[in-house]
């Protein structure tokens, strides 16, 4: 199995430790991982802001760089959703192989493809999961509260295997944290209000760490928590799963 690693632009620039954790985690499991150096961004920030046409060239490059792999793995639900949902619309009239069908979010890859049942990580803290919306309702990494379906959470299934980790459930757990990409600056007031309420809800339960699949959402909450001097720490789920 040959895996192509896609590291989103903001992770590359501001959260390299997330990419490193993903790389190391896969390597430890003897998976052949390759990181094509010519990659930058999947085009999602632009497409979500109304620049769908400009985002097409990103999709084409992504396709060129990654279609040779068996799987593409990326530690962001939001970017993967863009690849999976919007790339097929872009390639609709082209007769090219689309990477959309082989691209997986990191947790999804571990859960559904590798089907891991032993994580071998230790993380002795109280941890709350921020289930980001694109992973939740787009990739169905967990059941959303609007639907009448049996409860499940792929994140929790993996985190339960981590030694010492105490999962903390929160009220209104699947309400959006308010990040939303450019929404966080275009609709600054509402974005901040949503984030503060999310933090308040989580804080009630004395958690040490907030984790999730999207470090972008965590960056928003961390920015708020720091300004408010809250004693909360933020960590990507790949870092926990790779922690020993």
């Amino acid at each position, binding site marked *: 199995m040959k895996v192509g690693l896609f590291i989103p632009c903001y992770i590359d620039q501001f959260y*390299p430790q997330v990419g490193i954790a993903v790389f190391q985690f896969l390597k430890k499991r003897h998976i052949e991982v390759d990181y094509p150096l010519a990659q930058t961004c999947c085009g999602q920030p632009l497409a979500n802001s109304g620049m769908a046409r400009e985002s097409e060239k990103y999709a084409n490059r992504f396709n060129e760089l990654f279609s040779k792999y068996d799987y593409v793995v990326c530690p962001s639900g939001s970017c993967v959703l863009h690849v999976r949902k919007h790339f097929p619309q872009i390639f609709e009239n082209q007769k090219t192989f689309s990477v959309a069908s082989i691209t997986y979010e990191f947790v999804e890859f571990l859960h559904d493809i590798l089907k891991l049942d032993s994580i071998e990580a230790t993380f002795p803290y109280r941890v709350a999961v921020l289930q980001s919306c694109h992973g939740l309702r787009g990739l169905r990494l967990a059941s959303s509260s609007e639907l009448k379906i049996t409860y499940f959470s792929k994140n929790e299934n993996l985190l339960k295997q981590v030694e010492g980790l105490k999962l903390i459930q929160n009220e209104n757990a699947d309400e959006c944290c308010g990040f939303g990409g450019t*929404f966080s600056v*275009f*609709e600054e007031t509402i974005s901040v*209000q949503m984030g503060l309420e999310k933090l308040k809800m989580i804080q009630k339960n004395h958690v040490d760490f907030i984790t999730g699949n999207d470090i972008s959402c965590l960056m928003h909450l961390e920015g708020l928590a720091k300004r408010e001097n809250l004693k909360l720490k933020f960590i990507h789920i790949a870092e926990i799963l790779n922690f020993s």
Partner: protein
Amino acid sequence: MIDHAKNAFEFNKDKDHVDWHNQALWHVRIKRDQARDQVEDWEVLREKASLIKDHTLNNLHDYLLEFEKKAQANGWKIHWAADAKSHNQIVFDILQDNHIESVLKSKSMLTEECGLNDYLEKKGIKITDTDLGERIVQLLKKPPSHIVLPAVHLKKKQISDLFHHHYQSDQFNEDPVYLAGIARQELRNYFIRTKAAISGVNFALADSGSIVVCTNEGNADMGIHHANVYVACMGIEKVIPGKWELGVLLKLLARSATGQSITAYTSHLVKPPPGKEYHLILVDNGRTNILADKRYKEVLKCIRCGACINTCPVYRRSGGYSYGYTIPGPIGSVLAPLRRMNNYYTLPYASSLCGSCTDICPVKINLHEMLYKLRSDAVENRCLSLSKKIMLKLLDKILYYNFLYHTAGFLARKMLYLLPRFLLYNKLNSWGISRELPDVPAITFKKWYKENIING
């Protein structure tokens, strides 16, 4: 031009009110979840409802003609209105022909869409809203702030003051039962005196030529049954094949709207009683244009339950008026720009694209995906402000070209590290008004990979 972000900013100046508004609507969402849980095959039902609506829209022409034929046979007078102006004119003509100077109305979002109240008042006809919430906002000379809960933005105290002013109710008495009683007494006078009634329509049944009106207060029925002349106003997308389909949709409507298993009144209006006139106006007003656009056609499946509005984290914190359109929330943010993009282009951006609206919709309209597409339409119609456009164009260049990406990334990380706070946190940085910027790592992932894996 509606600036949603600015309106939201204004609404958020009173934080206590925002919290209260948010919680009031979240409470409705919880009630909806509880009502959903009573129905075992909820998701199957949603799928059925979605298919029913798809089917009807794909055969709308035939169902409308069948409905018209059957309704005429039942004694309804059928009118077709191409737009709002024509709709209002038809209502006025009917009232004038019957020498009517005062008319009662029961909640209809269509007449709000057409601006009927203003139109009739300018023509010298008094129009009185009879739903409690609608009556309250009418006394305030405001439009509804929600399609199902028109006065949900108001607190008991505000309503108490309003009733004291208009109806001389006891000052400072905020008891909802007392206040509802006052409105009831006042409205009774109108019901007894007035000879004409207008209402909206929830469903029109093609197989029986009848309409269904769902209400909780009984005011629609009281108005209709006492009136000599009744005018029902409906958008052409309200037609459904028949009773079987009605059963599916009714099971979803009230549960999705307010968490009730069914509305207090589900009135089937089939034929006019002897000596009375029943009119029905079928209104297009832009609907066939939407029907012709395959990207947005399914928005016409909407049954106006308001569930997407209640669940929307943005609506709950920005209030109905921030949208500046008859219908707020996610559904309004799709409908408004389809009507006039340059006036409403900020509405598709008034969403984090969290997708809660899509998952809650009883007829499975892919609302957040439409908001996504409408953003592209906004850009293509050159609606975005210059500063936003420059920002996005610049972002495009930086994120795409490897050289620019690395240079900009390098500079950004250096700046975050070196610059003093006042240069980082200022008016230009709206991220930093309430949030800290992330800490800067020593190296990028790419550099780590090159140093440790390729050369390591």
